[in-house]
């Protein structure tokens, strides 16, 4: 890897030990809370409060799982499906829209192009809390408050995806390919769908993954838009259950179990799509 080839660069033994200790402590810092979540999910309520995490005597993982999906008439399963729907569908559609737009920014010339691109970049900066109230009022005008669409439509908007799309398009789709397709008489959109989109594949996956994370994490917008528990995503549902837990402690084990399950899809997505998002990070960082 990086500097291993030049042995001159290697710090001395003491330096190396320090480096490894610092890195190891940092890794423990990031891993231990997750490990706590895993262990706590196997405990019943009493064991949870006795902080006796390592005793395996009261292993109640299965019972916690059963409780989780039975709590409040199986609401959790419903929330999970909602989250998957918002996140997977939203990220797929959003990534397609913003990548197409970024591609057009890269490959076509038109007036005010850089001004429009500046507008897109400015949108990255605007806090979601600023947009929430107007969006709520617009949705209520349109009769969409407390529906699937009130959450689904705003999360499609991903200006950073346009920025990435433009960079990927410059890096992955050579202009000569487009010229060749034009000489062959292929239509512009046909070329985009058949040729360019395929070359943009890894970039598209990166944008998808970024957006998937953002939507899965989304908490503020659903909180503003939704009052029907059946439409909640997992994040909002767990928030609500946790607020009940201070009154009725039987919610604690299900909140912990529910949190553990809610972490899994993103970990899975990151591991499966690892080689794509790494290139995406580089593109975003180095430009």
């Amino acid at each position, binding site marked *: 890897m*990086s*500097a291993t080839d*030049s042995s001159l*660069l*290697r*710090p001395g033994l003491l*330096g190396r030990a320090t480096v*490894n200790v*610092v*890195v190891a402590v940092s*890794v423990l*810092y*990031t*891993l231990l*809370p*997750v490990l*706590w979540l895993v262990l*706590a999910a196997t405990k019943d309520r009493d064991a*949870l*409060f006795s*902080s006796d*995490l390592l005793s395996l005597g009261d292993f109640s993982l299965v019972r916690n799982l059963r409780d989780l999906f039975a709590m409040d008439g199986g609401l959790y399963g419903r929330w999970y499906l909602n989250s998957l729907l918002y996140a997977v569908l939203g990220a797929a559609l959003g990534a397609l829209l913003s990548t197409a*737009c970024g591609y*057009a920014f890269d*490959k076509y*010339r*038109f007036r005010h192009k850089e001004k429009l691109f500046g507008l897109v970049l400015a949108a990255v900066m*605007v*806090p979601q*809390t*600023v*947009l929430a*109230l*107007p*969006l*709520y*009022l*617009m949705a209520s005008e349109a009769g969409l408050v407390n529906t699937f669409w009130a959450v689904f*439509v705003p999360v*499609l908007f991903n200006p950073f995806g346009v920025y990435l799309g433009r960079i990927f398009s410059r890096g992955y789709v050579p202009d000569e390919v487009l010229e060749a397709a034009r000489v062959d008489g292929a239509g512009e*959109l046909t070329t985009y769908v058949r040729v360019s989109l395929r070359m943009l594949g890894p970039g598209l996956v990166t944008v998808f993954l970024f957006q998937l*994370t953002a939507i899965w*994490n989304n*908490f*503020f917008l659903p909180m*503003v838009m939704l009052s029907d528990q059946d439409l909640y995503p997992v*994040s909002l549902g*767990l*928030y609500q259950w*946790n*607020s009940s837990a*201070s009154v009725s402690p039987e919610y*604690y084990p299900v*909140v*912990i179990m529910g949190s553990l399950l809610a972490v899994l899809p*993103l970990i899975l997505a*990151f591991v499966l799509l690892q080689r794509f998002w*790494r290139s995406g990070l*580089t593109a975003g*960082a180095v430009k």
Partner: protein
Amino acid sequence: MTTTTARSRVPAGGPRTGDPALSASGRRARRAAGRRQSLAAVVLMAPFFALLTTVFLIPVGTALYLSFFSDDQPGLGFGPERTVFVGLRSYAAVLTDPTFLGGLGTVALYCLIYLPLMVGGALALALLLDSGAARLRAFAQLGLFLPHAVPGIIAALIWLYLYTPGISPVIDLFARADVTIDFLGIHTVVPSIVNIALWSNLGYNMVVFYAALQAVPREVIEASVVDGAGPVRTALQVKTPLVRASIVMVAIFTLIWALQLFTEPMLLSQSSPMISARFSPSMYIYDAAFTRNNYSLAAAASVVLLVCTIALSYGVTRFTGRADTEETR
């Protein structure tokens, strides 16, 4: 929005700089090709710009509008509701509201602690991993990155439990050493929130820096070694300046996110009396809009937050930009 961009679009390689040698039919063909390309650009961009208009431009405009107008209800709210222009009254109300100013102060303190820790910590870890001395690099990166896959609200939940006496093994350990620690006390609550954010994003930013460090040409580093620079000097004086673009990007994104502080305090407020409903500007906006139903106040607070965000991001860009030009001089 989209229609105006369509009309003002100039075809790529269009016939404006008409080549006299080109025959009329050739010119016509080129113009047709240009039109086809314009059309393709419009089709590719229209959906995104429609979305940008509906969920960004109109809402920002609405927020501005709401901040200058207010619903006036004459006679105990029984008369017909009128919307009246109130000028800067809502802004005056927001900017003289001690709870809003307190929220701004809280976020300022939060940023002052969080930003240097985050950028410095992530960069330090990336440099350590890039130094060639670290072992199990792939595992370390994966471990550090893991919290990024944990949704913000769940990160806050995990840490809330780790801050809660009775559940937390951390407090238990401290208690065994006869140290009582209240993570959600008046002086500890902001650092406790910083810790949650740091835990969530440290690994992600480390990967960004690491990726940038990998792109540093090896010859540059070998040259510095030949010049007699040790590993620490190489890291700080050779590698760090070369990844400045990434540092600026991470700093700006961290700042933008930090200013929006909402999820973590919102969750912790369920368990800590130290966190009021107007703890941060974003919580103030939520409280004004959806608890007090004072839309013009919420809109004015939103615009103030937006202006702060833009000003600070611009400041970071300018600040680092100046450092940039000074160095090349």
